[in-house]
């Protein structure tokens, strides 16, 4: 039996009286590119924060490749890479210095090899000795991806990766995600509200509304059901509307 990349059961996150994530049960298989859809404030980022060990769940359980995010946070950290919505790095340091710092924190024995490898994968070797502070949003996103894969994780969390990117940047990012998934076998969990990206990049999707999972399925099934054109968008809008009516 293959272990799931992500296995969450009844995951809940409360901030005072506000319930950001409500009883979320989620399973992502190894090798998937999972698109996590939802409006702003639906609880997508809170879910990532729990799965990446940044915050402890108020209740429920979550396992990454069989390791508990609460009991074995150290083991989970070895398995995951994380790119936040706004990639922030040390602006005064070069790309190489930034990557070396994060590689060092991952306990890598020969960080230089890993740094060179990560830069080559995301195509930023020529930016190695340039200060990150002078980079555009798209270039920072690539450095952010490089820091996330520098320790060769098995699972990558991307929080709104296409946010603020121009069409060329989005296309480049799409190519990188495919490369990481198909060539390196990295499972990808991607928060987004850009439906077009989900339909082009992801193999399965989940839709979150007000902290609750209201749909989960394969993108190919959705397309077969609703037709290729705008299938995911139509589905998303439909289930969001129905969900609002029920709630």
């Amino acid at each position, binding site marked *: 039996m293959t272990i799931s990349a992500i296995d969450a059961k009844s995951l809940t996150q409360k901030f005072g009286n506000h319930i950001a994530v409500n009883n979320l049960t989620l399973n992502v298989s190894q090798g998937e590119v999972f698109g996590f859809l939802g409006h702003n404030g639906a609880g997508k980022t809170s879910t990532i924060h729990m799965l990446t060990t940044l915050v402890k769940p108020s209740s429920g359980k979550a396992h990454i490749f069989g390791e508990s995010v609460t009991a074995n946070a150290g083991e989970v950290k070895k398995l995951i*890479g994380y790119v936040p919505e706004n990639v922030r790095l040390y602006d005064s340091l070069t790309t190489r210095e930034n990557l070396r710092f994060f590689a060092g924190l991952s*306990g890598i024995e020969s960080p230089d090899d890993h740094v060179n490898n990560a830069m080559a994968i995301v195509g930023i070797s020529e930016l190695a000795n340039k200060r990150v502070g002078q980079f555009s949003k798209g270039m920072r996103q690539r450095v952010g991806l490089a820091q996330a894969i520098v320790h060769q994780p098995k699972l990558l969390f991307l929080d709104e990766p296409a946010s603020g990117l121009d069409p060329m940047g989005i296309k480049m990012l799409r190519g990188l995600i495919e490369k990481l998934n198909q060539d390196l076998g990295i499972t990808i969990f991607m928060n987004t509200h850009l439906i077009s990206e989900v339909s082009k990049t992801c193999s399965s999707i989940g839709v979150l509304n007000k902290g609750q999972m209201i749909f989960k399925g394969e993108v190919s099934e959705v397309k077969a059901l609703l037709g290729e054109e705008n299938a995911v968008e139509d589905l998303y809008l439909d289930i969001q509307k129905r969900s609002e009516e029920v709630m």
Partner: protein
Amino acid sequence: MAALRLSATSHIATHSLKTLFGEKTVWLFILLFTVLVVLSAYLGWSANTTVDAIYTDAKQYLLKAGNPVPPNPVMDSSPLSMLRNLSVYFGLIGVLVAIVMGYQLIAEDRKSGVLPLIATRLTSRREYACAKVGVFSGVLALLTLISLLVCGLVFVCLPSISLSGSQLRQLFEFHFFAYAYMATFGLFAMGCTAFAKKQSIALLTPISLWLIITFILPSLMANVNPTAAINPISTLVPVPDSAFFTIVHGYLAPIALAQNFDAISAQLLEYGPILSPLPVIQWGSLICAFTLSALFAVEAIGRMRMEKGAFNE
């Protein structure tokens, strides 16, 4: 695992040290502090030499006139008192250096917004806090050591003046308390920077506390003019004989860190009234404040919301 944990702490510490010394403001303050320590030693030496030269001239004149010669005032004063201005420089520039360093060590990571990336690596908040507090303590200790070396050089260069064993011990004790005094504010700044939501509050809170303790409390407790804080002698005045000052002094004495540090400095550097042993309230308040600040810094860093990290989020 233990080796890895040590490695994570030292890795963050090395990085923090590099970014700290990459800041021009930090260099500027450290340079200013070092120059003032040297200047303090020079001023003490210069004052003593001048008085001694005048005394020598006067002595010859008095001897020729057949008048009795009074003792040399330089010989009457302790050689340690040459260093009295140090207490002012530690209390003013030294504390500012500590505040800037404490702020910068945490603000660098919060301004960059890298905390979520650090927190998803193989390091714990405790290790992160240890690295930051360790770098701060080490750099501040280095500064204090520089001051101690400058003082040592002064006495080596002036063979006519030598310190007794107890005076040497007092010089070490003075630097110990100076370190604790500076670190109190620096660690408080570190905690505030970890705790504050806004960047401006992070820096203004420790500076405001320092201003209150250095300039306002002495006015409230002993009617000391605020500018007296830049004179090592002026703050050493008795409490005015009035009900208000007596009551206020009674309540505020334990937190009057600036006055307590001045009083300790005056005794250890032998330019003020000697009270042996040092009053507990004076050294006790400094040690308590240092301990509380250190606990506050570690606790505030440990409770930082690493998932947000950046200021104003």
